[in-house]
């Protein structure tokens, strides 16, 4: 096709007998090349171009002995409670203070970084650095209820990475936590949070 054979003239007619035609040994590579590129194209399209990204999560060992448990200071902790229907509540501390006055100590927030939980983490972060020095001393306790979605959990875990919070714990919400949320909701005239199973953990 693309190969124009210049050597072939009209001189053949003069020869008599059955002399075979001198054929060019060159093979036209164009179709083969076409096929090869077509196949490359196919493999390029079907191949998984971007490998999936993962987030590491370390599941700590259960410590039975209370002496070995890490104690979290009330002043350095921030607890995030996650209910169903994208409800998010938080309070400062590990719960002892908040339990006394759920209606005021527990604050409703959103998953947004700006104007939501992101700002809360940033504020807490700044105050912990100011008050107790090390930025690693801040501890965030993440407590999703059963009705919270995986997206909610990953979103908050991601916030830990975004704000570079070094210490955080993923703990399922207890019955007490749910009670506290419900007390808060009752105070603002809202029905109790939806939870798939009412029984405790």
């Amino acid at each position, binding site marked *: 096709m*693309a*190969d*124009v054979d*210049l050597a072939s003239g009209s001189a053949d007619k003069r020869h008599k007998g059955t002399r075979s035609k001198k054929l060019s040994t060159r093979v*036209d*590579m*164009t179709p*083969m*090349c076409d096929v*090869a*590129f077509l*196949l*490359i194209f196919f*493999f*390029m399209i*079907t*191949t*998984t171009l971007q*490998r*999936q*990204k*993962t*987030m*590491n*999560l*370390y*599941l*700590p*060992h*259960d410590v039975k002995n209370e002496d070995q448990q890490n104690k979290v200071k009330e002043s350095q902790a921030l607890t995030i409670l*996650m209910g169903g229907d994208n409800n998010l509540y938080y309070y400062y501390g590990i719960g002892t203070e908040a339990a006394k006055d759920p209606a005021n100590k527990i604050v409703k927030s959103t998953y947004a*970084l700006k104007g939501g939980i*992101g700002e809360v983490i*940033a504020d807490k*972060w700044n105050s912990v650095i100011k008050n107790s020095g090390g930025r690693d001393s801040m501890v965030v306790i993440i407590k*999703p*209820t*059963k*009705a*919270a*979605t*995986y*997206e*909610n*959990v*990953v*979103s908050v*875990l*991601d916030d830990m*990475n*975004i*704000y*570079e919070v070094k210490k955080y714990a993923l703990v*399922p919400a207890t019955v007490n936590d749910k009670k506290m949320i419900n007390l808060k909701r009752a105070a603002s005239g809202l029905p109790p949070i939806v939870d*798939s*199973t009412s029984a405790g953990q």
Partner: protein
Amino acid sequence: MPKVKIARKATAVDMTPMCDVAFLLLLFFMLTTKFKPDEPVTVVTPSAISTTLLPQAKVALITISKDGRVFFGLSDQNQRTALIQNISTSYKLGLSAKEIRNYELASSVGMPIDKLKQFLQMTPQEQKKYNQEGIPVDSMHQELSQWLDYTVNVNNNDPKLKFVIKADDNTKFDVVNKVLNILKKDNHHQVHLITSMKTIPPGTPAYETAKQSGTLDSNGG
């Protein structure tokens, strides 16, 4: 002045080197390509800023669907064969060679062990249409740790084996928590959660760190 004669040249271009290159590339793509394994359920993963890549070898993938069904799959086909053979002998399922072959070809399977044989008897087309029940993960009756134990056995306790969870945006934390607890109980403390990429929001500590280390451009931030 003599006329300058332009030599007549053939318009043909030698395609051989181009063809060589094309086949070389083709060979490369054929060897490196890994087909997307077809999943039993479509899962929309949540987005996070994490850029850690999913390890390619030795992955035990736990898929959790939107409605809380749990599926289990191994990335390595040879290990899948060993896994199903072990499961078959210890639970006396009596799987035939064809059924074992069917398991090898399936990417992730989410069936209770007692119904596994019935599921593996189906053709791959039927399997695709079949609505799998999911591996039981309730604390009273759960089979996921059996799958995990046999996987560890098949891998000869290789520490490189990675446990990866792929759950949907709308999966309830209840199920995820059950799976995490099972993993924890079986002493698998390092878990990878599959996420889709999102750009780091500007003005946050992670953004500053990325800017300093110069990795920001690759994140599209």
